[in-house]
């Protein structure tokens, strides 16, 4: 086998033969985690220019199917009142974005960022032939494949294709979770899952050493998963120790007003962990956090307002924290949910599973404003849902190409029409 065949080997082929060890102090010390090390250069040498940057992506999953019409609210459309006699009240207290749309009243922080031109709202994001199952639609969004033939997550694929996650397991990290979200999953990527920064440590005096001895060459179909998980845990612990030394959120907050990650807001706690990882420079590149509760089959008016309050508080604190550290121009925040909700409300003041909904892209590199075409309330699909106008993969493509600056076709399989929401200059 000649040198040209190198490109056909998966990372696992290298890993299982123990080749990756010599990442080399030079490679490690040279810079940021996004810099591919010896292994990555051997395989992906041609891509260096594409991935050499300090951009970070934070995906926020709004799990359960977040309603779009009570988030980015049509202010002028009389059909809203007809479809949603109770829920359309939200329009009365909405924060106006322009003449046609208002933001959910709980999202004052995001509104402030909108006013600064840092928020892009993409209307009507979805995919053909909407699937109303949470499970299936989540999988579609996670894999970037409406045909549901793919197993790996789009973020996991991005990591496997571009970054040396074996040497730097925090490249892809789920914060505030105890399992790997499907979007990050890829067997060719090493990933971290950190539930809480204070609990991410071995309690047993000798456990760290013992686990290192035990998980070394574990046989069986799960062997590599076990070994890399334990390695990732031990390595991450060492990195977190460093991160704690370099990041002191409280001091920063006391100097600023109202910059509080509410301890009662789990999304805020997860984003604070994300901020710590980003700010301390331990090699975080793609982070994923989740907030659930959006499956509002009943009493949606109050429930969604409350949930959007959590989202708003968490994003505001996170962005301000990054800004205080001079890092907000590196980080793109994007929200996603498996689907929006039915246009008409139910008798319980809730909504059933729907289709298209808006996505938010937030950050200093975003070109603020609306993108895409808002779906018409007068032209619903057969099931009574909003028809999509933007394929979610168009937004993925923009995130990959313009923000992370990696090859999106490798992940998404083809090119889509651009949604130019992120500055490329």
């Amino acid at each position, binding site marked *: 086998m000649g040198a040209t065949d190198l490109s056909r080997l998966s990372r696992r082929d290298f890993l299982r033969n123990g080749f990756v060890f010599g990442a080399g102090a030079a490679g490690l010390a040279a*810079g940021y985690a996004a810099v591919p090390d010896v292994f990555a250069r051997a395989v992906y040498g041609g891509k260096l220019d594409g991935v050499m940057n300090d951009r970070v992506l934070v995906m926020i999953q709004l799990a359960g199917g977040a309603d779009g019409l009570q988030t980015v609210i049509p202010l002028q459309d009389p059909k809203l009142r007809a479809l949603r006699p109770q829920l359309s009240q939200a329009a009365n207290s909405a924060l106006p974005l322009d003449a046609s749309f208002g933001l959910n009243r709980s999202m004052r922080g995001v509104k402030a960022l909108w006013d600064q031109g840092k928020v892009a709202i993409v209307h009507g994001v979805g995919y053909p032939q909407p699937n*109303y199952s949470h499970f299936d639609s989540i999988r579609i969004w996670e894999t970037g494949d409406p045909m549901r033939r793919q197993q790996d997550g789009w973020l996991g694929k991005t990591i496997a294709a571009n970054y040396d996650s074996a040497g730097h397991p925090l490249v892809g990290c789920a914060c505030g979770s105890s399992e790997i979200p499907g979007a990050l999953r890829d067997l060719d990527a090493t990933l971290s899952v950190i539930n809480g920064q204070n609990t991410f440590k071995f309690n047993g005096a000798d456990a760290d050493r013992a686990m290192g001895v035990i998980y070394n060459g574990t046989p069986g179909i799960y062997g590599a998963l076990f070994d890399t998980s334990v390695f990732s845990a031990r390595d991450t612990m060492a990195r977190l120790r460093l991160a704690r030394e370099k990041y002191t959120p409280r001091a920063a907050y006391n100097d600023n007003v109202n910059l509080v990650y509410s301890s009662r807001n789990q999304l805020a706690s997860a984003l604070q962990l994300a901020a710590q990882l980003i700010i301390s420079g331990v090699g975080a590149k793609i982070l994923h956090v989740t907030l659930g509760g959006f499956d509002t089959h009943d009493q949606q008016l109050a429930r969604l307002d409350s949930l959007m309050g959590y989202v708003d508080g968490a994003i505001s604190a996170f962005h301000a924290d990054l800004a205080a550290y001079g890092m907000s121009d590196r980080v793109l925040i994007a929200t996603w949910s498996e689907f929006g909700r039915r246009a008409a409300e139910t008798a319980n003041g809730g909504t059933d599973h729907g289709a298209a909904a808006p996505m938010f892209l937030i950050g200093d590199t975003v070109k603020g404003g609306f993108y895409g075409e808002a779906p018409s309330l007068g032209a619903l699909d057969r099931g009574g849902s909003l028809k999509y106008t933007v394929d979610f993969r168009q937004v993925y493509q923009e995130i990959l190409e313009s923000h992370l600056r990696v090859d999106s076709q490798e992940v998404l399989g083809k090119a889509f029409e651009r949604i130019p929401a992120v500055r490329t200059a």
Partner: protein
Amino acid sequence: MCAHGKTTAPGGPTRRKVLLTALATGVGVASARILGLRNLDASESLSSLVDTMDMSMATGVAELPDEYDAMFGVPDDSYAAQDFLDASNLPRTKPVALPPVDVRPAVALQLPVSGIASPKLAGDVDWVSPLPKESAKVTHLLRRATFGATEVELDRALSEGFARTVERLIESPFVEPPVFPAPAAPRPSASPSMTPRASASARPSPSASAKPSASAAPSMAAGAASPSPSAPAVLTNTTSINIGNLQGWWLDWMTKSPTPFAERMTLFWHGHFTSDYRKVGTNSPAIYWQNLTWRRMALGDLRSMLLKVTPDLAMLRYLDLAASTGRAPNENYARELLELFTMGVGSYTEDDVKAAAKALAGWRLPVRTEPTAQTGIFDARRAFTGAVTFLGKTGTFNTESVVDTILANDATAPFIVRQLVTSFVTPSSSDTYVARLADRFRRSRYDTKTLMRDIFTSPEFVAPETFRSLIKSPTDFMISAAKALGATNLSGTIRQYGSTLGQNMFDPPSVAGWGEGASWISSNTMLQRANFVTAAIGALRTTPSAARAHERHLDSVLAQGTVNELNLAREDKSRWFAVFASPEFQLK
């Protein structure tokens, strides 16, 4: 169900390097001897022996005589590539200076070097199956059907043998847990529907992050199931319950029940016909009654089950059937009944969901004047009276005819069978295996007792490739550790770590229940599994001897790393740590 990425690509996990097959046919006893830690208690450690072995092989293979080489010499590209992949053969790039990095010096984005060496991965080498041995079949069964075993249970099953143990598990009437006591005074509890949390069908793992209100975790010790002196004797459907106590009550019973198979089946159905206390609420014992109902019906026929599941009080709340009327049908229960409970996605249409929603409407919760009702009440005035077309049949339907129509559908038996097989046998069941079981299941009028017996006695259940092919759920893992230790004071610790590891009783991440397999394993959960072991061992009043733990609980089939650590562990507590924290013990 949502196993990890490529491991469940169509066809499921592959075991390309199947040296175990060769071993397992005929040399089971010999291999077990070889794989045993014969020197564990001797002063001389095994490390010298281990050092002579092929580093990438499961322990023990190196001692096999030469003639096995031919059998093991399976052409395998990973090994063919080995020479080439030796680092010294690689076209080494000279240490060129890295291109400049777009990093502002004001912010240190230097990578900290953690100093931890990457593990050496084993590649496609598999565990050597001991399953030809009768004793290994027995321990395999107990791991999968009864959360492992106490010393007493293990001795009994080993003396009975595999076949008799299967019969005993299946035929012993399930012993009921002790009555969960009503609290002394009813406590007001928050309206469940206002909990800002993934309600019923939010399938994404809301996990910890999905619970914005960090509240709720009751601080009362779990397992404190002793009734308070002034407790009322009877729970009514408006009695509030303490969920922490209820979780402890069940976990406690899992470690103590004389019929642990009942608890294993109840946990299976809890994950299948799932409900969570956050949406159901704790202002009623509904979720407790559901647990009792699921246990009583656990080996019954599927028709009776579905007719109990549909009007179950907790289910009525969880999937909104209580809020559904013929005039304004709510699709939530109808959809999950088809998608997750019986047929699986792809075997029905959206129109079937809408039709079923109409046909099932009419159930309501008891009202104040019906305090003793333990199931939903059907109110014909709330029902849909017209005709619908459901799964190709047009007419007027009620709950029974919806269930009967589902049971008449070819998708149902294979769907249920695959769920059970994935949980009890293998993550990658073949279609023919599922079809064979499903055929008998359907012909037995969907009798799950027949099905479970068929599953345990099928050759596939003890086939070499099923050995350690399943990952223990957190509950499986923790209960089996407690039972191995003979510890009965760990339900509080187990409850606490259940939350950390992603499996809280009565609190599944989504309406799809808990995941299976690889989804349990991450850097975070491996860390916390080790921490559970530390906590469990620390909570022991007395530490049992660990001298034979690797034989009793790991079948003496050990990875090299485990052998190394067992030999370094010189006293019982550290030896138990190595046993429970090992990859072998995470598997079943």
